[in-house]
């Protein structure tokens, strides 16, 4: 079975070898494989595994194709391809439009997903050093926040984090009388903005001094969009 797989690997990899040298290339590899099978049958020790050995074709086959490539030969290929494509302009046009649509759609989806899911929010200093700590559960795909004492414990005991800040998401109602609306917001600890490295455009942000005695005074930070 291993022999069959090894021969199949050689056959498939051989497709990457230039046509004129493919027969010779396969001949050498089959010869090597036969020798290895013979030695294995004799029980010779210290030999590589048959399949591992055959996997050597993976770097060897592309090497055979790129060996001896020069700028001249590549330009020659380019001129030949251009002539072939110009000979059937209808096919070339359909192929180019198909490729353009495919690449365009993929690039748009990637930009959207990248912007929404992978990019950190703007304005955060050194976002690659920022981590979110939460509780996860083996039983269910769920994330939970920590309690206030647990957050304090992490902040006081952590030796590898330069700062720890906590937040809790809430909905707030703003406006008066019937002119009210709900907006999303957060309760945050005094060092929240310092940990994020965010600077205010106007006024000041919540500071550690605001976070000493609960309920002593209220501070609010408004986002630009609000």
């Amino acid at each position, binding site marked *: 079975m291993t022999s069959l797989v090894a021969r199949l690997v050689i056959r498939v990899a051989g497709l990457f070898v230039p046509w004129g040298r493919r027969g010779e290339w396969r*001949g050498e590899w089959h010869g090597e494989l036969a020798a290895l099978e013979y030695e294995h049958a004799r029980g010779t020790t210290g030999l590589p595994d048959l399949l591992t050995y055959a996997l050597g074709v993976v770097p060897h086959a592309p090497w055979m194709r790129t060996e001896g490539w020069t700028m001249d030969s590549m330009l020659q290929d380019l001129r030949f391809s251009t002539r072939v494509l110009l000979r059937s302009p209808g096919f070339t046009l359909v192929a180019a439009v198909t490729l353009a649509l495919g690449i365009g759609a993929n690039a748009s989806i990637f930009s959207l997903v990248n912007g929404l899911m992978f990019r950190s929010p703007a304005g955060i200093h050194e976002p690659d050093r920022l981590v979110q700590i939460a509780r996860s559960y083996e039983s269910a795909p769920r994330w939970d926040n920590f309690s206030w004492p647990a957050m304090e414990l992490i902040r006081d005991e952590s030796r590898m984090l330069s700062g720890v800040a906590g937040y809790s998401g809430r909905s707030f109602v703003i406006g008066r009388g019937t002119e009210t609306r709900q907006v999303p917001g957060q309760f945050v600890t005094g060092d929240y903005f310092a940990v994020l490295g965010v600077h205010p455009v106007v006024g000041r942000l919540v500071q550690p001094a605001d976070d000493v005695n609960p309920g002593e005074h209220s501070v609010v930070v408004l986002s630009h969009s609000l």
Partner: protein
Amino acid sequence: MPRSLGITSLQILGAIRDHSPYGLEVVTRTGLASGTVYPTLGRLKRSGLIKARWEDQRAAEREGRPRRRYYELTAEGQRSLAEGASRVATLAADLSSAAVGGAG
């Protein structure tokens, strides 16, 4: 001036020097991966340091197996191997004395 050969090329030239092996023998003698040995053999052949010859078809048929491709050093290959071996020996001596000096 020709480019200095690396350790892998020297190992392979060394394995070919004493007798004319085929690829599998080079792999087992050097302990290198087959994916490293065959492209290196190709490069050495293109540089004219080794040459390859196919085994006689009838000899292989007599043993009931595909024919093998044997490699041997050219005169240029023997010179390059001697130069490379001398360079590696000098380097090894330098490193050894540096290690002794550093240990004290």
